[in-house]
């Protein structure tokens, strides 16, 4: 059964879309890194590209699950929110940053 929107401001949907935009930004950044690595090693570039695609798909799926769970939890008047996913996203971003810094220092 499809539940109606939890609030007229569509807060959950906006937050879900925000997660999707972040996934796309991350994928773009990863693809840029993969393209730059291609000048050093094609195999490494393919590995980086595939890892980025799989990582984005996994995080996107996690975001969808989170969106559904939050929606159902609010309708059931349960508690929502958790810091694990934000921490995971921060860790992935900082890992990308380390790669970017190494590239800028070695270029």
């Amino acid at each position: 059964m499809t539940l109606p929107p939890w609030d007229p401001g569509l807060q959950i949907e906006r937050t879900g879309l925000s997660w999707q935009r972040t996934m796309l930004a991350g994928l773009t950044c990863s693809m840029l890194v993969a393209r730059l690595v291609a000048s050093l090693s094609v195999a490494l570039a393919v590995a980086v590209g595939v890892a980025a695609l799989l990582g984005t798909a996994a995080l996107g799926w996690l975001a969808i699950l989170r969106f559904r769970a939050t929606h159902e939890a609010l309708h059931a008047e349960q508690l929502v929110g958790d810091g694990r996913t934000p921490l995971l996203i921060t860790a992935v971003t900082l890992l990308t940053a380390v790669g970017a810094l190494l590239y800028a220092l070695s270029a």
Partner: protein
Amino acid sequence: MSDSPEPGERDRRWPRAVYGVGTEPDPRFSFANERTFLAWIRTSLGFLAAGVAIAAVSKFSNQLSLEARLAAILLIVCGIGCGISAITRWVRNERAMRLGEPLHSSPMLLAVTAVVVLVAVLGFIVVTFG
């Protein structure tokens, strides 16, 4: 889901420094806090992409100039700062909302503006005198 305990069930949400204090705020405010966190992450990714792009484009003319390297490193370091600030701000704001305290201001806004201006000045120098 572990992040949606039933009323009365033991609250296992993490971090306890946030979810172990105060009272539940209006979920709409928590969603707004989460979207702000994500916006900071996207800003961080934007800085990283800009830094790497400057380094890559400048490399076309063989050696990376000092100005270009400095601009690239500044942008990437700013990206790292935005990433760390994103999670710390999320934690502090969520905690403040639960405790009914005023939200914290962010020195990162000033730092981000300063870096953008500095990189623009470096770009101007490279374009004019490079």
